Every structure is written in structure tokens, then in C-alpha cells.
């Protein structure tokens, strides 16, 4: 029975193109308890985490999904005949980091944090669906308010915003930089 539950979970995660949230699994599998599902999920993730597997189940953006393991990237690019995937520009990354740590906020606020006009980078991020409009601010001019999207989370392999680099990690980076110079 447990093996069957594990198989069902494997199938559901496999068939889902977007990260499959635990809550959704629970509403689908009404015959199983939350504990059973949690346990089977853990066992399944564990199965794929083994060395002798090329694919894995990752937890991103609040859900489970299949992805390949990093070390096989060269082979995939060989198969698909593609170069390395494009990275965000420095400006876009800075803008995204600003949104991530200070959200929700407006374009003017982003530009103030960065000291430069950020409309161009923000457009790029909207197009890439890494940032979304969530409404308007109740202030003069009623500027649009922005937030990071679920896609942002899966783009960086984060389960939730709580997994953003912490204050300690950031401080560590800054100290290292100081030491290096």
C-alpha cells in the first residue's frame, strides 16, 4: 500500500509541469492521511537523491517537481544543442534582489534603493515573470506595487521567501570581501 502511494506520488509529480504543492496532493489523495503522504514523499525524494540516479525530485516554490541533476547539464546541452542558459544582467539581478528583500514596493522605491532609475530592469523582470504587479499604493500618483512571483522562487530553487539568503549569510559575504581586499 505504501509502495502504491509512493508510486502515485511519483506519477503525479512527474506529470505536473509546475511544482506540485503538498496541499494539492492532499486534496487529491483523500484516501490517505497527511502523515502517510509526508512519509511516502520523503521516501520518494530520498530514492531519487541516491548517487545512481540522473534525475531528482526538488522542493521549490512550495511544491515538488522533477529536475535533472547539475552534473549532467553538459550532456543535456549536447542533446538539445544549446549554449548555457542566459543569466540575468547585473542590473536586473540587483533590481530583483531589491524587490526580493524590500517587497512589496514601487518602482520609485526600487530606484531609490539602487541610486539609479530601474524602470528598464523592472520591465525585463516583468517580462521574465520573475516579478509581478500586485496592486497600487495608496499614495499620490497611485504607483503600481511589485512583488516577486512564484517563478522567482523556482528560478532560484527556493522553496519560499524564507529561504532567501539570510542576514548572516549576507554579512559573511561582506566580511569576506573586506578581507580579500
Amino acid at each position: 500500500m505504501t509502495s502504491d502511494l509512493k508510486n502515485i506520488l511519483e506519477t503525479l509529480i512527474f506529470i505536473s509541469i509546475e511544482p506540485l504543492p503538498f496541499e494539492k496532493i492532499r486534496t487529491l489523495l483523500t484516501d490517505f492521511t497527511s502523515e502517510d503522504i509526508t512519509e511516502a514523499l520523503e521516501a520518494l525524494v530520498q530514492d531519487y537523491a541516491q548517487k545512481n540516479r540522473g534525475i531528482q525530485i526538488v522542493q521549490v516554490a512550495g511544491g515538488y517537481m522533477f529536475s535533472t541533476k547539475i552534473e549532467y547539464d553538459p550532456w543535456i546541452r549536447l542533446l538539445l544543442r544549446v549554449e548555457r542558459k542566459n543569466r540575468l544582467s547585473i542590473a536586473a539581478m540587483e533590481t530583483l534582489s531589491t524587490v526580493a528583500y524590500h517587497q512589496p514596493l514601487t518602482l520609485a522605491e526600487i530606484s531609490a534603493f539602487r541610486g539609479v532609475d530601474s524602470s528598464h530592469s523592472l520591465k525585463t523582470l516583468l517580462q521574465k515573470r520573475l516579478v509581478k504587479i500586485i496592486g497600487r499604493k495608496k499614495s499620490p500618483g497611485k504607483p503600481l506595487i511589485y512583488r516577486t512571483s512564484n517563478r522567482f522562487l523556482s528560478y532560484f530553487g527556493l522553496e519560499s521567501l524564507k529561504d532567501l539568503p539570510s542576514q548572516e549569510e549576507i554579512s559573511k559575504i561582506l566580511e569576506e570581501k573586506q578581507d580579500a581586499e
Partner: protein
Amino acid sequence: MEAFQGPLDLLLFLIRKKKIDIHDIPISAITKDYLNYLDQKEKINLEREAEFLLIAALLIYIKSQMLLPREIVQEDDMEDPRKVLVDRLLGYQKIKAAGSLLREKENKELQKWQRTFLPPSDPSNREEELELTEISLFDLAEAFFILMKKKERENMRTIKGKEVTHEEKMEEMLDYLEKHSFLDFIEYFNQQKTISEAFLSFFCLLELIKARIVVAIQESLFHTIKVWLRKESPS
């Protein structure tokens, strides 16, 4: 100026270069460095220039504040005129550092690949498959007629190709499938030279599907329809 994301970036660079404590910036010296740097650069993007000058003005303002004789007040109440700038620099520094950590994650994640298409269900279970991933003849016809409308609008060239018979077309399609292993519906129909030939190949395709020689699958909603030769097709 290209190398710096903006005036705050430049300031941080100058502060680090001189190994200055960010909480105790010698404003006079750093203002001089900053203005020198702006002078060195001849080509400044006009849009960016305003932003760089804005911070220059802030620096000069802070400098002037610091030169003013301080009133005798309690140390605690005294606001350091540099505080505004230091807060901004610290905030920006944090964003930049977080960005570099996110960059590491990005590098890692970009090497992972996810499927962007729906995998088919067990192909041996054809009845089930029909319901799930095989598209209906109606879907196929609909897609086709939308296509035809588009073709008509494009004032398709009416160069008369040679008359193609039903058998020839059928054979041509099977050859194509065997060579390419699959056939992209939209692409294939776009390649047809005349409307009548396109119609003919469409009806051939319907026959091939009905005879269960090929299978048509739409990988995900709004994607192109792909036609595959069934492996165990009746010969």
C-alpha cells in the same frame, strides 16, 4: 562609468579601495575622490550623469554640514550628517551582496533542467490514451481550418503544383514520418504548396489516424500537434 551600476556602486568601490570604515567616512577625502572620478570619465550617459551628480551634491551638502560649528548638545541627540548616506550605502551593499548569493543559486539552477511538456501516458493503453493525451479529430480539424484561414489571408501563392494523387501523398507522408520519426502538424501544412494539396494531406492524415497507423499528440495546451508513426502499426 559602465562598470558601475550607479553612484552608490562607485562610492562603495572608492570606500573599499581606501579601506575606509563605512560608518566613519572621511567625507572631504571621499568627495574629492568621487569628483575626480567623474572628471576622468569623459563619456557619461546623460541619464546616468544626473544620478551621479545627485550623489555628488549630497556629498558636498554633508561636507558643508560637517564644517558648521556644532552647537553644544548631548552626544546622543546629535545626528551625524553622514547618517543618511551611510544608511543608503549599507542598504545598497546588502542588496548587492544578496544579489551575489542569488547569482550563485542562479548558476546552480540554470544547470538543472525541467520538462516543459506533458509526457504521454502508457502508449500500450490506447483507449485510455485517447481520452488523455490524444487529441480528437475535431481538435485537429479546428486547428487545420484556423490554419487555412490564415493561409488564405496571406494570399497564398497560386502557383499550380503538379497534381498529386491520394496514394502519392499518403506515401510521401509515411516516408516523411519514417525519416523524421515525427511530423509537426503546423510546419508540415505550411510546407504544402497549394490549398488543394494541403487539403489532400489533411485527409490523408485523418485516414492514417483512423487506420491507427499514426498517433497524434498535443504535448501541452496551445502547443503544436505532433504526429508519430505507431511502432506496431499494421502493415
